[in-house]
């Protein structure tokens, strides 16, 4: 157990401490106690950079459940470290920001516990090497995201959004688990690194492709790709720090991480590459197209996040090609580097933008773009940050977004020129889609700056706007500063983190030696594309009133959201209807289902496998056995016929005592003793209950009712006889009891095997049995007390009497 193992669960441990602190320390904002945790982690992670920079990786084993191959193995390479730093770094800033954003009146304890849970979950996803552990933490991120979206539980939109995100991401998670299991079946391991080295097993049309599809479903649902993006806009109901953290900077990037991590595993699959590329591009265009029309500032940013994720996804698709075609080809490495670089850039500018949105919301009381305007003079610092980050998002030099956007365009141009036989006619579509998506990105970025900060002051805001406090401003300021610094000096990052991360995506051995530059000369098509984007974007923004009508053609009925809502609605209705059809509320119906199914299953199995009976090895029959059988049969017959409850209970006792005698004959003294004692107590219990129960024990029943019962009963009896006979005739295994017989004295120091098995060898059974017994006792106590308390003529004395029991 090294510090890094500990660092992953540190937030979880801290969550407990926070709960204690919350109880005893009042007056100080709880966030101050949470703040050191991500800070410690990020500081520690920075110390690992020199190791990674040299191209080394760390693998730290810790066994968790070695027998099923589920181990807590930490694997640190460029990719994992990059994500871990993003998680803990942005986490630090978000916690700091939340101190200003959330007032002391909110349920701070819940908020920070969920946030810490999320940190652990996310660190686990990106740092662990085991797919099962990855899945575990992956679902934990979904759960903590669910809890955080529904943080304001009283708001209907919050719970709706939380449920939606839960349903969609959990669906993806399950699919992904299926993919992982298939993969481990193909490669024979649960470790990602070993999967990579066995990646040549993951080929073929059948299982390999299915694994690709399943893993991609997990990634696409988490990273909100088309058509699963619908949950992300609704997830914006969460508090803004959460949106900034989970739904733009970290959690939604888990899908990207997954794709990046599994690229070397699926390197021989073309399905993988093209699906990612095409889905990414569609997402980019569709989401940025939608973002422009939204009125809620957070909705704009949500769609913007979706489109940026699509951008990165498409770049990762091209990186897949890099692995197929060999890592030396220039274009592919450009794509990989662009993807990694854009992950960092997006985290900085989108994180800052979300925080700016939060500040606007906090200071003015609204997020509606229509109600905002002219904030530039009132909130100059916020405006500066919004301007810088929006320009970066739009891809305007010299900010960091420009650099990665240009690399993205370059990669798209290269791939349309590249020599892929299938692409000859449609290759031009890639740069075209990329440019269209970027134009809309420009448009909504312009909208944010122009309509909120410039223009007339609307005076429609619920609160009088004023500049925010330093506490709120410091986190977005740091991120905006990073936007500028990374934009001006991109090569600060290349050696230390981008190259190692890119190398682990394409599984390269030699260092890449990337150089990111601002100027590629006039020959570069990306430069012209950027110019086109800016010119067309500006023109379209200026003449927006003339073409905005096209949004009207997108009816609500044709959106995926509508599909989701209707689907959920009808699923609920039909499953209710189905349930009501089967569940009549009448106990007998359920019993008929159960027994009928048993009969059908039994007979079908018998018919398919045939009966193979063998009676060569039977014990001798004694006269006393026959007498007992006769007694039992007669008693049973009387139970069936009689109408008197007294007689039926006595006959039940007769059956029970005969069973005890059977146990004596069959050499089971313990059983005989227990059966005798139990039978005595049961009979007493029945007699005691007499007073309360009706006299008639047999109700009048219709003939058809009886006939059905009779048929089912005969069927069940016949099936159990057949099962018993065939099980007795065909012993597949030797009994394991020989072990108990041999070791009863040396291991357990007892002589009575039955008792030793009960208290020692199979003690678990006994513990649970004792629990069942205790629960039954307590349950009966509760039932009886309910009866007593319900009666009106209840005397206090009697109640005191009862409580003494």
């Amino acid at each position: 157990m090294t510090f890094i193992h500990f660092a992953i669960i540190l937030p979880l441990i801290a969550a407990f401490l926070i709960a204690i602190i919350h109880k005893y320390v009042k007056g100080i904002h709880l966030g101050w106690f949470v703040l050191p945790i991500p800070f410690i982690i990020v500081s520690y992670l920075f110390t690992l950079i020199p190791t990674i920079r040299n191209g080394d990786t760390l693998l730290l084993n810790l066994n968790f459940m070695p027998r099923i191959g589920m181990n807590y193995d930490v694997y640190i390479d460029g990719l994992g470290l990059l994500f871990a730093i993003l998680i803990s770094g942005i986490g630090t800033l978000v916690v700091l920001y939340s101190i200003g954003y959330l007032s002391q009146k909110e349920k701070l304890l819940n908020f920070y516990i969920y946030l810490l849970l999320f940190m652990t979950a996310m660190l686990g996803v990106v740092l662990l090497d085991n797919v099962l552990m990855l899945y575990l933490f992956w679902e934990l991120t979904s759960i903590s995201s669910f809890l955080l979206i529904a943080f304001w539980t009283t708001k209907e939109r919050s719970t709706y959004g939380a449920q939606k995100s839960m349903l969609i991401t959990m669906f993806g998670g399950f699919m992904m688990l299926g993919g992982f299991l298939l993969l481990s079946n193909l490669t024979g391991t649960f470790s990602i690194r070993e999967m990579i080295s066995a990646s040549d097993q993951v080929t073929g049309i059948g299982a390999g492709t299915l694994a690709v599809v399943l893993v991609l479903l997990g990634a696409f649902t988490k990273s909100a790709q088309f058509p699963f993006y619908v949950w992300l806009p609704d997830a914006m109901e969460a508090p803004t720090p959460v949106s900034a953290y989970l739904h733009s900077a970290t959690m939604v990037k888990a899908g990207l991480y997954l794709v990046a991590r599994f690229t070397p595993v699926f390197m021989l699959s073309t399905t993988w590459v093209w699906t990612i590329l095409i889905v990414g591009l569609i997402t980019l265009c569709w989401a940025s197209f939608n973002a422009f029309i939204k009125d809620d500032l957070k909705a704009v940013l949500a769609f913007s996040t979706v489109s940026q994720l699509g951008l990165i996804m498409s770049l990762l698709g091209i990186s897949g090609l890099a692995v197929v075609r060999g890592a030396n080809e220039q274009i592919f490495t450009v794509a990989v580097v662009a993807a990694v670089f854009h992950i960092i850039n997006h985290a900085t500018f989108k994180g800052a933008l979300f925080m700016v949105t939060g500040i606007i919301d906090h200071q003015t009381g609204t997020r509606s773009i229509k109600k905002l305007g002219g904030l530039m003079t009132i909130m100059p610092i916020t405006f500066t940050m919004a301007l810088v980050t929006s320009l970066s998002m739009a891809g305007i030099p010299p900010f960091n977004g420009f650099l990665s956007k240009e690399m993205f365009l370059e990669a798209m141009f290269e791939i349309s020129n590249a020599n892929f036989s299938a692409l000859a006619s449609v290759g031009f579509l890639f740069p075209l889609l990329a440019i269209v998506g970027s134009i809309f990105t420009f448009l909504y970025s312009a909208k944010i700056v122009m309509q909120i900060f410039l223009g007339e002051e609307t005076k429609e805001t619920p609160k009088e706007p004023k500049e925010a406090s330093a506490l709120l401003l410091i986190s977005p300021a740091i991120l905006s500063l990073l936007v500028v610094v990374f934009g001006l000096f991109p090569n600060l990052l290349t050696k230390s983190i981008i190259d190692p991360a890119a190398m682990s995506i394409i599984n390269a051995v030699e260092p890449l030696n990337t150089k990111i530059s601002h100027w590629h000369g006039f020959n570069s098509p990306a430069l012209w594309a950027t110019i086109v984007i800016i010119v067309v974007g500006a023109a379209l923004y200026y003449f927006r009133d003339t073409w905005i009508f096209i949004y009207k053609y997108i009816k609500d009925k044709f959106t995926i959201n509508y599909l989701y809502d209707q689907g959920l609605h009808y699923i609920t209705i039909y499953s209710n209807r189905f349930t009501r059809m089967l569940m009549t509320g009448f106990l007998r119906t359920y019993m008929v289902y159960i027994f009928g199914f048993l009969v059908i299953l039994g007979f079908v199995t018998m018919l398919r496998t045939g009966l193979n009976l063998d009676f060569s090895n039977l014990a001798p029959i004694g006269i006393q056995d026959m007498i007992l059988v006769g007694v039992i049969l007669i008693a049973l017959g009387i139970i069936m016929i009689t109408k008197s409850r007294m007689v039926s209970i006595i006959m039940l006792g007769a059956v029970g005592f005969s069973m005890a005698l059977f146990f004596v004959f069959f050499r089971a003294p313990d059983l005989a003793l227990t059966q005798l004692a139990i039978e005595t107590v049961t009979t007493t219990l029945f007699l005691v209950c007499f007073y309360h129960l009706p006299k008639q024990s047999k109700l009048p029943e219709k003939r058809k009712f009886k006939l059905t019962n009779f048929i089912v009963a005969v069927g069940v009896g016949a099936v159990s006889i057949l099962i018993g006979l065939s099980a007795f005739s065909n012993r597949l295994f030797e009994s394991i009891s020989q072990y108990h017989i041999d070791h009863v004295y040396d291991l357990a120091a007892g002589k009575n095997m039955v008792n030793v098995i009960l208290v020692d060898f199979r003690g678990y059974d006994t513990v649970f049995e004792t629990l069942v017994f205790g629960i039954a006792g307590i349950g009966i106590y509760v039932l009886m007390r309910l009866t007593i308390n319900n009666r009106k003529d209840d005397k206090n004395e009697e109640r005191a009497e009862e409580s003494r029991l």
Partner: protein
Amino acid sequence: MEFITIVLSGVLIGAATYLILSKSVLRIIIGISVLSHGIHLMLLTMGQLKRGNVPILEDSVTNYTDPLPQAMILTAIVISFALTAFSLVLALRNYKVLGSDDTETMKGAQNEN
């Protein structure tokens, strides 16, 4: 002998099924008791009958009856007693509240969704 006990336990299970399917709660509870008897007998038979000695270690004996089914049945006996007792009290309380021991009148359909 095993053949006879298997058939006997089948008869017990069948009769128990018939009792469980009836309307009266008391008969259902009796049915559950009978069912557990049938199953115990079946289980014991699976470990083969009357072979070897009582499963208590003695120096001179090497051949014992299978102790494992016995241990399991012992657990089952006690659990089935707990179950019988619980369902009996449940029926009792039900009868007090609803005034009937007919399962058909116990349907809570109007409250169910």
